[in-house]
C-alpha cells in the first residue's frame, strides 16, 4: 500500500494539502471549510509530559479532597467528586450515576494516565508498549472528558445552595480548577504528532501519486 507522509487531508471536508502547511499566525486553516488543520509551536514531548504529570497530580488531589462543604444550623456535610457521582444512584435515576462518574472522574483519569504512558516513552524516541491500542483508546475517550463541565456544575450547585446554607469551597475544587487548565493544554492538543515521533518519524522519501 502506498503511503504519502508529505500529504495531509482535512478531516472535515477531504481537501488534500502538502506538508508543511503555510502557517498564518501560527495556525493553518482549510481553504475549503475553514477547519483548523494544524497549529504551530508544538510542545516538545518533555514539556508535554511534565504538564501531563502535573495534571495527574492535581486531578488526584481533586478526587481526594472534598470539593464543597455545607453548614446548616450547626450541622456540617461535605462531598467529594466520587460521592457526588454516587449520590445520583438513588431511586429511578440510578443508571445516570455511571456516565456521571465516567465523564468527570474515570475518563479524565484514564486520559491523563494513558497520555503520560505514551509520552514517557516518546520523549526518549521510543514507542510505548501497546502504543497503537493506547492511541485508539485516547481518540475514543477524548470527547467524553468533562472536567470543565463538572467544575461549572459544582460552582452552580454552590450558588444554588448558598441561599439555603453556608457553603465553603473545599481544597478539591481548587485542585480541580488547576487540573482543568492543565488538561486543556495537554489533552486537547493534536495527538497525531505523536505518531510522527521516534520510529514513527515521517519517511524522507516522498512517494509519488
Amino acid at each position, binding site marked *: *500500500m*502506498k*503511503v*504519502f507522509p508529505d*500529504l*495531509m*487531508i482535512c*478531516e*472535515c*471536508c*477531504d*481537501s*488534500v494539502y502538502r506538508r508543511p502547511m503555510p502557517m498564518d499566525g501560527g495556525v493553518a486553516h482549510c*481553504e*475549503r*471549510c*475553514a477547519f483548523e488543520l494544524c497549529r504551530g509551536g508544538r510542545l516538545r514531548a518533555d514539556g508535554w509530559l511534565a504538564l501531563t504529570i502535573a495534571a495527574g497530580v492535581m486531578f488526584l488531589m481533586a478526587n481526594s479532597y472534598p470539593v*464543597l462543604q*455545607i453548614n*446548616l444550623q450547626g*450541622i456540617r*456535610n461535605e*462531598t467529594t467528586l466520587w460521592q*457526588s*457521582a454516587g449520590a*445520583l444512584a*438513588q*431511586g*429511578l*435515576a440510578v*443508571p*445516570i*450515576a455511571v*456516565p*456521571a462518574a465516567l*465523564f*468527570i472522574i474515570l475518563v479524565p483519569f484514564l486520559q491523563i494516565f494513558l497520555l503520560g504512558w505514551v509520552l514517557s516513552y516518546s520523549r526518549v524516541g521510543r514507542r510505548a508498549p501497546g502504543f*497503537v491500542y493506547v*492511541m*485508539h483508546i485516547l*481518540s475514543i475517550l477524548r*470527547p*467524553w472528558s*468533562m472536567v470543565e*463541565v463538572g467544575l*461549572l*456544575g*459544582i460552582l*452552580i*450547585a*454552590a*450558588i*444554588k*445552595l448558598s441561599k*439555603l*446554607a453556608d457553603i465553603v469551597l473545599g481544597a478539591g475544587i481548587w485542585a480541580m480548577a488547576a487540573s482543568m487548565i492543565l488538561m486543556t493544554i495537554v489533552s486537547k492538543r493534536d495527538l*497525531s504528532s505523536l*505518531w510522527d515521533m521516534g520510529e*514513527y518519524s515521517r519517511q524522507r522519501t516522498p512517494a509519488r*501519486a
Partner: protein
Amino acid sequence: MKSLPPRAEQLGIIRCHICDLVFQPTAKPDKAVRCPRCEATVHRRLPNSIVRTWAFLIAGVILYIPANVLPIMYTSFLGNGIESTITDGVVSFWNSGSYGIALVIFIASIAVPCAKFLILATLLITVRKHSRWARLERARLYRMIEHIGYWSMLDVLVVAVVVALVKFRELATIEPRVGILFFGTVVILTMLSAMSFDPRLIWDDKE
C-alpha cells in the same frame, strides 16, 4: 479567485482518522480498508452515517419530552417537599435575581439541546437533498455543535453535587428524580448523533 485544493476522493487517497496517515487503498473505494500504520479500520465515509445520525437524533428528541416534563429533583425542607423540573431550576434562579446563572443553565440545558436537534436535522436533510446551499456555514455549524454539545451535561452534575451535599435527615434533603436520567440520556444521544454524522458529506457534490 484561487482554486480550491483537490479532494482525497479525486486522488484516490484516504486519511486514517486515528493516526492521520494518508495512503492509497488497494481495495475498492467503497470498501473498508486497514490503515498500514495503526491498523484502524478506515472508511472513505463513515458507514451508514445518515441513518445512524437520524436514529440517535430521533431517540434523543423522544426522550427530551420526559426529560423536561418529569421532575429532575426532589427538595424537602423542614418537612415540605417539592419536585422540580429543569425549567423550574431556570425560573427559580431568574426569580431570585441570579440572571446570569439562569441564563447559563438555560443555554446549557434548553438552548443547546434544541439547537443540536435543529442543526443536525438541517444537516441531514440538506445532505440528503445534495444541497449546495451555504456549505461553509453548515460545516461551521456542525463543528460548533460538536464543541458545545457536552456542556449540556451541566444540569446532571449540578444535581449530583446538590444531592450529595444536602443530606440533613428531617431538616433538609434533596434527592434525584428520574427526569435527570432522561436528560442525561438525551445529552449522550445527541453527542452520539453528532459523532455519527460525517461532515465530509456536506462537500460531496460537485462544486
